[in-house]
Every structure is written in structure tokens, then in C-alpha cells.
């Protein structure tokens, strides 16, 4: 479950058991509660949607007091998505969450604006990305996942910086910077003007980013962006992603994650594979020409 698309896990209780899922990544948490952006916060786009929720959340204290116990009860594996306006805020969050029972890992969202640097996003520069990851690393022994933004020239460089600063894994991608306007009212469709694009439309971009990151770093990579079917999930895994997250698709089909799990099992059976590990990272970019003299025998040349 991708951050921000599954609430705090309770919202989907009627449709699936969070204990069945690999992990639930809860909505981004900040040190203090945040009201979020004024509405409209959403707009539908071709095969996607743009959101500008503005990271509305209850704040870390209330999360630990109220939301986390509920998730523990349901026996969900909880990954907490954290974000701050400054490096110190990230560090503070890590300190607070370190050692909390029921928190399996932290996902560092470095796709939000750095107030100190005039609103530049932490995740768009290797140095600031490393600063955030390093500060969090110093405060916690929890496994760290760093979530990258696709809105950069070379995502592999950011991934390398995060790994060097101590992240254990990378998840990619967060939403793609986007915008929508209404020609009749002549206004942006989002009160925030800009927002983040997600959903099927971004899958080809997410796959490309995941591939670039996998070529740049050795750590586990989690694929996210536009996944709505088992086939989508398997595409990221074929590239080498160890796990995937499902975001926007939850909104359309609240039971989608279980369908995806079942679809992956069906695929493995069909392919005669015992374990998903035998499939992960088996992308073949070499043998492209089956009719060539040195073809690797995919075809029966009678």
C-alpha cells in the first residue's frame, strides 16, 4: 500500500485485512499536525489523477498514541512515511518513531519542499537528499527506505546519494509534478495550482525510473507508480524491484491489493516458478532477435 492512498489502514477494513498485505505504508507523518492544502485538492486526468493534499496528517504524537495501536491490533506490518520542512524535522521524527512497537521501517519522503532552501525539494539534489537520509540514519536503527521523486534529470544520482548516506532501500516513484486548468472559470483546477500525477498514466515513467535506479545502486528497490494489476506489479519485479506499492488503484478498487497478490501467485504457477525470487530481475535485454543465427533458441527453427 503506497503512502497517502490507504489512510491509516482503518479505511479499508471492510474490503481487506491489512494483516494479509506485505506492509502498509501509512500517510506521510510530520512532527506537528498539518491541516493540508485548501480544496480543490484533486483532479482526474487521462488515466491518472493529480493530488495536492498538502500532506494533511495528525502529527507524529497523535499517530503514535491513536493510530499505531489500531494497526498493531490488526497485525499489519507498518512502514511510516515521514517528511519535514527541514533536515532537523526529519531527524526529530526518526527519534520519536525509533523503538515504537509496531513500526517496521521508515520511508523517508524527500519529495517535499525544503523551506530553508526557498522551497526547493529535498529530493531533487543529491546533497540535500543525502543530508536528510544521513540525519535520519543517525537517529534510528530502523530499516530506512528513501522515496524518490521522478522530477529530476538523473534519478540514479539521487539514489546513489541516498544509499551512500545510509538508506537500506529505495522506493520510486513519488508523483510526477503536474497541473490542470479549467478554461471556463480560467483558474487552476487545484487551489494549490500544482500537484502530483499518479495512476496508470505514470507507470511507463515509474518503470523507467525504477530501471535507472536499479542500474545505479545495489540496494533493494520498491516499485511504485500506476500499479493496478498483477501484470503491472510483475513488470516492476521483472526489472528487479523486490517489492511494489499500490497507490491510486486502491481508490478505484479497494480490494485490488489482494487481487494483485492472487494474480502474482497465478502467474508463478503458470510459469512453473516456485518463488517470486526466481522471476525478480530476470529481464533479458540481450536476446532480441530470435531469427538471428546466434539466437538463443526461443523459437523452434524446425
Amino acid at each position, binding site marked *: 500500500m503506497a503512502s497517502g492512498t490507504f489512510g491509516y489502514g482503518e479505511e479499508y477494513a471492510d474490503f481487506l485485512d491489512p494483516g494479509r498485505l506485505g506492509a502498509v505504508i501509512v500517510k506521510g507523518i510530520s512532527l506537528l499536525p498539518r491541516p493540508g492544502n485548501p480544496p480543490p485538492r484533486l483532479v482526474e486526468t487521462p488515466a491518472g489523477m493529480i493530488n495536492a493534499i498538502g500532506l494533511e496528517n495528525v502529527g507524529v504524537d497523535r499517530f503514535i498514541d491513536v493510530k499505531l495501536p489500531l494497526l498493531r491490533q490488526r497485525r499489519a506490518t507498518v512502514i511510516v512515511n515521514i517528511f519535514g520542512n527541514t533536515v532537523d524535522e526529519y531527524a526529530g521524527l526518526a527519534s520519536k518513531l525509533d523503538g515504537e512497537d509496531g513500526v517496521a521501517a521508515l520511508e523517508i519522503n524527500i519529495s517535499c519542499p525544503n523551506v530553508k532552501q526557498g522551497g526547493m525539494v529535498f529530493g531533487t539534489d543529491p546533497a540535500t537528499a543525502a543530508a536528510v537520509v544521513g540525519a535520519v540514519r543517525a537517529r534510528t536503527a530502523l530499516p530506512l527506505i528513501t522515496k524518490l521523486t521522478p522530477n529530476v534529470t538523473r534519478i540514479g544520482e539521487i539514489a546513489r546519494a541516498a544509499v551512500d548516506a545510509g538508506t537500506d532501500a529505495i522506493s520510486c516513484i513519488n508523483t510526477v509534478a503536474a497541473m490542470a486548468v479549467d478554461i471556463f472559470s480560467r483558474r487552476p483546477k487545484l487551489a494549490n495550482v500544482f500537484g502530483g500525477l499518479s495512476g*496508470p498514466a505514470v507507470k511507463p515513467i515509474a518503470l523507467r525510473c525504477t530501471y535507472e535506479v536499479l542500474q545505479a545502486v545495489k540496494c533493494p528497490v520498491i516499485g511504485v507508480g500506476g500499479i493496478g494489476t498483477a501484470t503491472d506489479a510483475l513488470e516492476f519485479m521483472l526489472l528487479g524491484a523486490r517489492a511494489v506499492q499500490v497507490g491510486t488503484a486502491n481508490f*478505484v478498487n479497494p480490494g485490488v491489493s489482494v487481487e494483485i497478490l492472487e494474480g502474482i501467485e497465478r502467474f508463478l504457477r503458470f510459469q512453473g516458478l516456485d518463488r517470486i525470487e526466481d522471476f525478480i530481475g530476470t529481464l533479458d535485454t540481450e536476446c532480441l532477435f530470435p531469427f538471428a543465427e546466434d539466437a538463443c533458441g526461443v523459437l523452434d527453427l524446425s
Partner: protein
Amino acid sequence: MPKFQENALILDHREVADRTWLMRLMSPKIALEARAGQFVMVRVRDGIDPLLRRPLSFHRTFPEEGCIELLYRVVGKGTLLLSKTVPGMNLDLLGPLGNGFDLPAPDARGPIALIAGGIGIAPLFDLMERIALSNPAFDPQQMNLFYGTRTVAELLALSYFGALGVRVHWSTDDGSFGHKGHVTRMFAQFAEDSAFRPESLYACGPLEMQFHVARWALAHDVPAQLSLESLMACGLGACLGCALPAASPDDPAADGYVHVCMDGPIFPAGAVQWQKLQVHRPPPPIFLSD
């Protein structure tokens, strides 16, 4: 309250007023739990175009028969596609969602007002039926429905309300039927002229209308239940997209939000900060197919 994902069979589907469609669906689980004022998230067709579900209120519910009715207006791609479905096809529904209206107290007898702007009539119909059903001692003539649309072609026919026996006050913006002008103006004038002071007030319609209803209700200290709209992605409280700026009486400067799909869609008049509201308006119908 349990929520269901149900694959509902379309039993009947017809255009009952200009661009206004009535659809009857077999959806036993949802029908059994539905309250007036709640809604379903409808997947208008397979695939990813459009990607998101569309929220539609219960127009009428028939728990014993396992049926629900939706009444909707074609305003964009989703509702246009919906209008092309035919009986025999299935629609994927999620519901019942939201809080729903609170019915008047069992001993209530006094007049109530219902204000419907355009397709806002949809959930009020269910509400009126439930009031009549749950409180047989309540004289239907005490239900005053103020119902306005842009023009007469968009009005549901008189006969539609016949069986209910409620008192309908009609208006159209262009004066083609009933009172000429906005429904809120008709309502305010009626209230003034006949010293009408409802015990409670229910309203559904565009936010522009609800703004006026809320102002009137607050000024006259009449408890109001307004069905408010917002763009929705999930309908379940997960995306936090359906926020409206909340009014917190303790701290008027506080920047909080209510969420239409969880805290609503039914709100008291004082729940939102109208001055912070941005309104979405559908494109003019002639650009619909674009």
C-alpha cells in the same frame, strides 16, 4: 456501518427530465444498509477511462426488494458514459458511504423545509419517503419542498411527487415554470411572507445555493442539514481529497478541514468556512462532448 463492493445489475434506466436520468439497480447488500443522504461510488465502466469512480446519492432505496435508485444529471464524461449503459449491464458500486441525514425526531410534527437545487433533488426524495415511512403521524403537507432548476425542461414532473403528498414550491431561474429566480430567493421570500419558520431544514444543491441556505439558517437559528459536494477519489476517507475548510467555533482562525466522504456529505450550516470555498462548476452542456 459495513461497506460493500457490489456488482449491481441495472434493472431500469431512463431519462426523466432534460439530461436527468433515473436508474434502478439490484444491489441487495447496499440497499439493506443504505440511509437517506448516503451515497455510492459508481464505476461507470471498465478500464481506466475515466479512472475514478463517481459519487451518486441514493435517490430511493428499497431494502426489501434489494434495490436502489439513482437520479443523476449528465454534466461530464463520467455521467455521459453512465447514461449510455442499458438494463442488463452491471455496475460496480461501493457503498453505502458517508453519514446520511438525521430524520426529524419521532414526535416532530411541525413544518420542515427541504430545498433542492437542480439535481439536488436526488437525496431529498429518499429523505421524504423515509420521513413519511418512519413517522406516519407526520402530515406530509408539513414537508415543504422548495425545488428549483434552471429551466422547466430540467424539472422532474409534478406527478413524480404526487404519491408523496408533500407541498412543492417550484421555481426556475428563467421563469419558465413556477417562481422566477433562484430557489433560495423563493424560499427566503416565502419564509418572510408567510412567517414560515421550519423546525428543521434539509438542503441539497450546488455550493452557491448551499451558501445562501446556510446563511439563512444561521441567521434564523434553524437547524439545517446540508448535503455538500466535493471532488472525490476514494469515498472512503483514504485519499483526503474531499476536504472542505472547517469552521471551528473555538478557534475561528484555525485551518482545519472536514472531509465530505467521512464527516459528511451531510453537514450543519455552520460546519464549513464558506469564505474559503472554491467552487467547481461543470462546463456548459454544449461543450460536453468535447
